[in-house]
């Protein structure tokens, strides 16, 4: 048997260099000792509520519901959190854990910049050093977030290797962690990588589904019929799904970035186009060629532009508990514009992938059905890119 540690069915594991093994073992031990510690949880809850602004709203999107003419639509407003995305949930948890472990330095990868900004924020708050690795191409696409991270006191390292996007930022952060372990915690931003990261990140993000459950029970007296979220590595989706996994009547739908379409090479839809592999510490599905070389993926969304998917999602797909659907750039951009005009909410282009799928399925559903969409982040960061997509050149 391969390591049963952190397996989700056949997925997961710890496929990392020997140099990092004691670091992940130490992390797992620390996490296991703190996760049920009342004092740790008191501090984390206080950070969530007083600093990040939790609980986030569950908002009834009445105009969108009426316009689509089918299921009742609620939006889980993670975009209203401090720093503008769900990423802060995981980061506050990991930073607090790292601090308890005696670490003084956080390193992180980032795609769109949201996780990097969240990590830089937590580091500033807790008085820790912070270095963020970001694909050079993404530093151009998301220049504003680079400035925010620097303003928060973090060093941003542009990664020039490979495709100069999210996967290369993860590789470079792993390399950096290998060279400096004793004072450094790798604050991984999604439900991916070697065990225990997929478990830790899921647990810190699970606050999303816990709140959806409570809030919807209070508003509607029942569970939703479907929960829909976008999936890159899959942290906001995993957090949105987690407390519903045991409620079989709740459909769980993850929306992958299809880029220019799943029948093109310019896609990042891992479950639709990838196959089983081993990369970045985990066994899961990856976009790759026949020799196992990782494919250069593409999406308009820098946050979903990753060639793999978290191992627990791969497992939920295998057992049929969650459904994963591809959504193209064009569909996501239309949804981005639609939500802005219909509800006055500018959602992140990542989250707009989930909105786009709901625009397809809601009209055909009965009016007494309920869908919850997780709006994982706010879309201010995307305005320049969307304008460019529409042929308008604006300067920030």
């Amino acid at each position, binding site marked *: *048997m*391969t*390591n049963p*540690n952190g397996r989700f069915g056949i997925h997961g*594991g*710890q*496929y*990392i*260099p*020997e*140099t*990092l*093994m*004691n*670091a992940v073992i130490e992390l797992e031990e620390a996490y296991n000792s703190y996760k049920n510690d009342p004092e740790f949880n008191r501090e984390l809850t206080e950070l969530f509520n007083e600093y990040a602004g939790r609980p986030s709203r569950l908002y009834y999107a009445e105009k969108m519901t009426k316009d689509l003419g089918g299921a009742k639509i609620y939006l889980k407003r993670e975009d209203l959190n401090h720093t503008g995305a769900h990423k802060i949930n995981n980061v506050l948890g990991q930073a607090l854990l790292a601090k308890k472990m005696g670490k003084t330095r956080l390193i992180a990868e980032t795609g769109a910049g949201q996780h990097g900004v969240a990590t830089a924020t937590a580091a500033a708050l807790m008085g820790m050093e912070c270095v963020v690795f970001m694909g050079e191409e993404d530093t151009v696409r998301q220049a504003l977030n680079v400035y925010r991270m620097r303003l928060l006191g973090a060093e941003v390292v542009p990664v020039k*290797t*490979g495709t100069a996007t999210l*996967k*290369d930022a993860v*590789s470079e952060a*792993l*390399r950096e962690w*290998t*060279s*400096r*372990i004793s004072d450094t915690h790798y604050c991984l931003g999604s439900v991916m990588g070697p065990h225990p990261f997929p478990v830790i990140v899921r647990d810190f993000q699970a606050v999303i589904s816990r709140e959806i459950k409570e809030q919807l029970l209070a508003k509607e007296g029942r569970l939703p019929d479907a929960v829909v979220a976008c999936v890159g590595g899959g942290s906001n989706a995993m957090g949105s799904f987690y407390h519903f996994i045991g409620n079989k009547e709740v459909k769980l739908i993850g929306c992958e970035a299809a880029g220019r379409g799943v029948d093109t090479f310019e896609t990042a839809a891992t479950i639709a186009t990838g196959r*089983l*592999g*081993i*990369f*970045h*510490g985990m066994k899961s599905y*990856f976009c*790759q060629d*026949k*020799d*196992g*070389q*990782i494919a250069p993926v593409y999406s308009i969304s820098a946050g979903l532009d990753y060639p793999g998917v978290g191992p627990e999602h791969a497992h939920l797909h295998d057992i049929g508990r969650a459904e994963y659907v591809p959504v193209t750039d064009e569909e996501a951009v239309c949804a981005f514009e639609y939500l802005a005009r219909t509800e006055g909410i500018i959602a992140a282009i990542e989250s707009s992938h989930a909105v786009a799928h709901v625009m397809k399925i809601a009209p055909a559903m009965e009016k007494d059905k309920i869908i919850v969409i997780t709006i994982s982040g706010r879309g201010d960061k995307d305005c320049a890119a969307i304008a460019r997509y529409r042929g308008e050149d604006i300067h920030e």
Partner: protein
Amino acid sequence: MSNIKKAFENGKAFLAFLTCGDPDLETTAAAVRAAVENGADLIELGIPFSDPTAEGPVIQGANLRALRGGVTTDRIFAFVKELRRDVKVPMVFMTYANVVFSYGAKRFISTCKEIGIDGLILPDLPFEEKEEFQPICRQYGIDLISLIAPTSENRIAQIAKEAEGFLYLVSSLGVTGARSEIKTDLTSIVKAVRQNTDIPCAIGFGISTPEQAKKMADLSDGAIVGSAIVRLLETYGKDAPPHIGEYVKSMKDAMR
């Protein structure tokens, strides 16, 4: 019994690493022959991977050049089969888990046996995950090489006890690439290794000068050099083989 032990029968061993297909397979063949003629005791052949997370910039560059040049796993297998006609020293593949997994572990490892490869080094396959490939490696008599790092500490005993072929001692934290100084307390690591196994151990990562090679070989059974050789390929391209021969000779001479 493993063929790899032959590499350690002529005094301290010099283990040379190159990436297959950097810049093309003809140059790799000439470089391997030059290294062997000048005293290399074992050849580590890198199969390029798109995202080599354990490598520093020099070997990352080699991986990219090789992939751009169009090498594939099948072309490398054919190349090694040809090379084996006259190259008699032990040869091992060094690549990443996904290259083996994606090819099909059984198909990959049985082909290794067929073409005369003696072992397999996978830097992203730690002790906890080696069952992924080890049963098949055993079936075909391919040694799955284990690595020990400066951070291994309490893990050394279990890794050493089950090690095959030779033990790869990682000299320093971080990725591959030349270092001006190696600070790890390798003496105590080697001591812990010796208490648990009789198989040879060689030190790699960061070794580039003859002085370092001698120092590392004095501490263990041999020195592994990758980035310094790859650097010659980066600098001289197709004209690198004689430079590699000369370099290997200087390293091997220092270790005698």
